[in-house]
């Protein structure tokens, strides 16, 4: 079956060379502009990198969808939470007055903020959807202060590429890139639907990341670290999720 002509061989060769060259250029561009996710290695790396890079570029200055007040879910579903730790129960008993959010890392002035401190910062309220990777969703009004304001307050340094955040529970750490962190919708949330944020929904303090699926919106946040090197946290995959088999980037 010697039907492959010389012309086809040449076309094929040129196409293959262009493909390899294009991939090499794309790889260098992606590295330079930070378009490779921390879990961008392994078999699923190419897919993850394509998704993350495309969505990162598509969502520049594109905030999450907001909804009219009439669309707020009457019966939102609070997903399961782990049994509260002893420390959480102690803080809850004290009305969360001793709750502290530590902000450190590549910042000029590290800070520890109480909820009262956070409430003196500019208030923002937004009606956005929580979409779980399982498929369900609900809409609520979320009230708090943008993470970007807190990062400016502590003087986040220009080399910062990621913002790592940790919860007051085991294995509750995650991270987002600096673009997501500076998005005005990325909200340190203390209120929900005109009341305090209930504990099952992450109260007293949840970081809402509405352009990504629910699991990026970590509940019970106590620690935020700006960093230029996300690889030094955990197994270097950006969050604890990939250690359980789930993607770091959850925009889809």
């Amino acid at each position, binding site marked *: *079956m010697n*039907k492959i002509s010389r012309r086809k061989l040449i076309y094929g060769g040129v196409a293959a060379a262009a493909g390899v060259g294009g991939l090499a250029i794309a790889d260098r561009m992606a590295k330079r502009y930070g378009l490779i996710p921390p879990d961008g290695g392994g*078999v*699923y790396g*190419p*897919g*993850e990198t*394509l*998704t993350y890079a495309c*969505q990162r570029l*598509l*969502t520049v200055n*594109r*905030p*999450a*969808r907001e*909804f009219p007040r009439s*669309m707020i*879910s009457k*019966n*939102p*579903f609070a*997903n*399961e939470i782990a049994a509260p730790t002893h420390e959480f129960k102690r803080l809850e008993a004290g009305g969360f007055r001793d709750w502290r959010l530590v902000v450190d890392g590549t910042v000029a002035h590290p800070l520890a903020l109480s909820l009262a401190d956070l409430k003196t910062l500019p208030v923002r309220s937004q009606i956005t*959807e929580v*979409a*779980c*990777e*399982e*498929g*369900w*969703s*609900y*809409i609520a009004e979320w009230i708090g202060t943008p993470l970007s304001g807190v990062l400016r307050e502590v003087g986040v340094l220009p080399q910062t590429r990621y913002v790592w955040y940790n919860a007051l529970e085991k294995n509750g750490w995650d991270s987002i890139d600096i673009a997501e962190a500076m998005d005005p919708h990325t909200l340190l949330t203390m209120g929900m639907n005109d009341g305090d944020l209930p504990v099952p929904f992450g109260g007293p303090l949840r970081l809402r990341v*509405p*352009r*990504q*699926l629910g699991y990026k919106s970590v509940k019970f946040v106590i620690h935020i670290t700006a960093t230029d090197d996300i690889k030094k946290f955990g197994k270097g995959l950006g969050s604890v*999720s990939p250690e*359980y*088999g*789930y*993607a770091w980037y959850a*925009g*889809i």
Partner: protein
Amino acid sequence: MVRATHWLTFIAFIALLVTGGEIVISHPRFYWGEVGNVNTKPLFVIPIPASRDTVPTGYGYVMPDQNGWSRYLHFEAAWVCVLTGLVYGIYGLVGGHFRKNLLPGRRDLNWRAYADRAAQYLRRKPPDSAEETSYNVLQRATYSVVIFVLFPLIIWTGLAMSPAFTAAFPWTATLLGGRQSARTIHFIDSGLLLLFLVVHVTMVAVSGFRSRMRAMITGYGSDSTCDSREDR
């Protein structure tokens, strides 16, 4: 080109089907509109146990959670499918494959042509010799629906579930009635594609599995004089 993209799509589709099934198991309830969760009335429920104990299924059994790798693979396979589809689409438009082989011809734009060919299938009469090198009207219509309706729709509804994609293009979700509508259409569409796969493979088997597979892989029909398949 048609054969290469066909088989790439086949591999990607099987991966999407399996992983999509795994993802559905974590919440086998479907809704209409923007939102839906266990506190919302579902449009319909698939009567299977779920892989989450938060979903009331009536079974006292929770399936193992496979969502992590399923989601990774689902999106990677979706990329293979979309990029392959893009190559195929450009080739089909520029190379004339769509016009010559896929879209029904002008003479076939009447019910009679479809009814006649359907009757021929039902009477189990062998195909005409013209079908050795080209698709009949029913094939053209079916393939056209799959390629120009079902695949584009499943990509659209998949993206309409993405909170980041809908931040960039909100109309992709609102036009469908909301995120949960998109999820429901995505699921129904996958069912239709599965139905197509089953019928398609059955037809291949009925018309001589080995000779058809040889044609689909090598491009040469069972009749060895057929060396000019225009869709190569």
